[in-house]
């Protein structure tokens, strides 16, 4: 079956340019997460979407980062005026989530987008 897909797989950009990363979650998954993984480091939570609830944006590192999600489908992560420290692998994950209770479901990860800011 189809898993989480992300595009592009690789992105090289110049400092100061804007980039947009895309995530297609598994069909039926109401919860969607974005993480950042810098080279040699762990996963850093960025943002979480659950159904029609307000997203948890508490992990976004600055106001240059934003994300949107259309209903319970595609999500885009936008980084404006990219900086070299934004270079990382950006991972998207989705899960069934829950309604009314704490989410506990397993997250399924996409292959990631490797971003390099020159």
């Amino acid at each position, binding site marked *: 079956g189809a898993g989480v897909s992300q595009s592009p797989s690789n992105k090289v950009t110049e400092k100061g340019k804007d980039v947009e990363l895309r995530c297609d979650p598994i069909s039926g998954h109401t919860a969607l997460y974005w993480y950042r993984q810098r080279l040699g480091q762990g996963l*850093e939570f960025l943002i979480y979407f659950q159904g029609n609830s307000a997203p*948890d944006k508490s992990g976004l590192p600055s106001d240059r980062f934003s994300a949107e999600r259309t209903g319970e489908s595609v999500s885009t992560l936008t980084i404006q005026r990219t900086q070299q420290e934004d270079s990382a692998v950006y991972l998207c994950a989705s899960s069934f989530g829950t309604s009314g209770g704490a989410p*506990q479901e397993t997250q399924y*990860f996409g292959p990631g987008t490797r971003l390099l800011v020159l």
Partner: protein
Amino acid sequence: AQSVAQPEDQVNVAEGNPLTVKCTYSVSGNPYLFWYVQYPNRGLQFLLKYITGDNLVKGSYGFEAEFNKSQTSFHLKKPSALVSDSALYFCAVRDPYLYTGGFKTIFGAGTRLFVKA
């Protein structure tokens, strides 16, 4: 706020020997705990989780983990390591209470496991 620590950057073990990858956590209330694995050039994969019930949780590829509330630990174990187990392992914790932990899953920094033939 919840946090998770993986005290070892790297674990080396000989094939056939038992392996342990350590994880400790900090969260209010009873945590939801997860282990994920990242093989070279592949995405993160779920291994196992503890939500409630038996403290010993069995997962994929022969791995298991033991939830120890008094020690706030969730160490990953396997009785007999394989060379193919060599990968990067992440422990993760989620606070089940929405109003204190929100929806975040916090991941540890990862432990690289090397299994020598």
